[in-house]
């Protein structure tokens, strides 16, 4: 009987940072190239925002502010924020799909950076978020919305929104680790995000006239602060305080949900 011996091989001890970066980009590519075979996803990322802008502007605009034009500076930043929250659920949806289909196991059996599957997805989802925001702004411009600040403020608005979206998407990562079907991530997301986005100033100018406790919740919602900061950056108004509070919420959410997600994942694997 022959006994093969494993000679010491030239194997790396750990993933080098450059390799890790390449792994992450490869997996981001993988998540974006999917769109090519599933054009519905791109429609999903485009049609829903367009529909929301048109419906809200033309149906609620005149009743809210007297005219569509007067409502646009209020509603466009609001819809951008709401859309970012909904889109954040796709991170969890995609992760859960990968886990239930066994794709995640394949990745984890490869000599790649442990964080690459997750970070690759987050980067791809951030690109999708940016795309949605671009569509929203374009549709807004087409029907009369105008940037009242400057390009730097516009870029800052993108940066703020994407940062908040990445931090917030950890909520969907946790859900993804806990449920056994991708669809449940969406359902859960809808049930939480729908009220969360409406209990804010996303679609209204102020909380005046709203009953005390409800108004208090709305005034202190992270979504309100995000929306107000976005308004300030796009059409003018106070930015810094709102932006800092929104980001603080985002960091807080991340600090709570990221460790919980990792723990849930370890338990699940």
């Amino acid at each position, binding site marked *: 009987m022959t006994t093969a011996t494993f000679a010491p091989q030239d194997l790396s001890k750990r993933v080098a940072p450059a390799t890790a970066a390449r792994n992450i980009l490869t997996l981001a590519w993988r998540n974006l190239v*999917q769109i090519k075979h599933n054009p519905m996803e791109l429609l999903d990322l485009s049609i829903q925002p367009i529909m929301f802008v048109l419906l809200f502007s033309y149906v609620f605009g005149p009743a809210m502010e007297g005219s569509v034009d007067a409502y646009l500076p209020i509603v466009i930043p609001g819809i951008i924020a709401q859309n970012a929250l909904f889109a954040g659920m796709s991170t969890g949806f995609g992760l859960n799909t990968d886990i239930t*289909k*066994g794709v995640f196991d*394949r990745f984890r059996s490869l*000599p*790649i950076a442990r964080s690459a599957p997750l970070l690759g997805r987050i980067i791809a989802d951030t690109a999708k978020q940016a795309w949605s925001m671009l569509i929203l702004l374009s549709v807004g411009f087409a029907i009369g919305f105008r940037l009242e600040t400057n390009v730097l403020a516009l870029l800052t608005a993108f940066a703020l929104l994407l940062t908040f979206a990445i931090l917030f998407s950890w909520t969907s990562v946790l859900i993804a680790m806990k449920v056994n079907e991708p669809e449940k991530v969406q359902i859960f997301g809808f049930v939480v995000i729908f009220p969360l986005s409406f209990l804010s100033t996303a679609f209204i100018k102020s909380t005046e006239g709203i009953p005390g406790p409800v108004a208090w919740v709305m005034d202190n919602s992270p979504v309100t602060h995000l929306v107000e900061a976005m308004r300030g950056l796009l059409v003018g108004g106070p930015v810094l305080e709102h932006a800092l509070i929104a980001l603080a919420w985002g960091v807080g959410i991340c600090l709570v949900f990221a460790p919980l997600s990792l723990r849930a994942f370890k338990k699940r*694997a």
Partner: protein
Amino acid sequence: MTFAIQAEGLEKRFGETQALAGVSLTAQAGTVLGVLGPNGAGKTTMTRILATLIEPTGGTAHVGGYDVVREAHKVRQLIGLTGQYAGVDEMLTGTENLILIGRLLGLPRRAARARAAELLDRFQLSDAAERAAKTYSGGMRRRLDLAASLVGRPQILFLDEPTTGLDPRSRNGLWDIVRGLTDDGVTVLLTTQYLEEADQLADDIIVIDRGQVIAHGTSDVLKAQVGGQVLEVRPIDQPDLDAVAKIVGDLAGAVPEVRDGLISTPITDPQLMPAVVRRLDEAGITVGELSLRKSSLDEVFFALTGHHTDDIDAEADELAQSTRQKATDKEGASA
């Protein structure tokens, strides 16, 4: 001496459930180790530990000479894994799936594309190369999955129930592929519920049940231990039953089982069948059914453990129920 795969006293506990209760095994380089066992025996848990996906709660394992926990990254550079559920991205084409793995393994773009084309060709998927994997049949998906696990030319390959749910033709195709791999010197650990599959492919077989190894040896050794084949005789005339049972018993050297007019006995020597025919002929007994078939996994289990594979599920249910009952009792007591 180093084995390609070596595990000692592997244990894994999920909460209350002991999925693995001290599994030890070895696989020599370039051989196929078959891990045979029913659903829930711990095969997948064991594979996942060896493939560095989960950590054991006890015991140690080395793959390619490296510790699966402390040197997981090195182990990952040597292995390929094909799980029970085909781990391919259904949204990507066959080519893209394989390029993705190639790129993750550090192949330059051009090399990754060439390797993808080569594997697709080898697994007869070239025609479907540019189609999304979601349009593939079950057999095609498994082949793509296997191709994906081979992109990095692994020295050690884990195949977790690679043919479960496949039709016989696809299964035979996959068997041929596995045989081809060992010709290249790859060490394969293959888990299966099918005795025939282990028999066909494995050099060495371990049988596991309830997280423990209950038998170990080559296919021939195991068969000799449990009776590799089953001889069944059904006389046309019921009164001949005793006479037939005596003839079969004499030749097989053991008292056969008689149930519903069918006489059956495990045998190890295939030459027994013609002898039985001759004796029946001499005795002038006409039989309605005479067959020699391979032992089923259930029979192997019965021979090794004294319980049928179905019992395992039943007992697991019972256990779960009693646990629930206990929980309820506890709640009741504290209330």
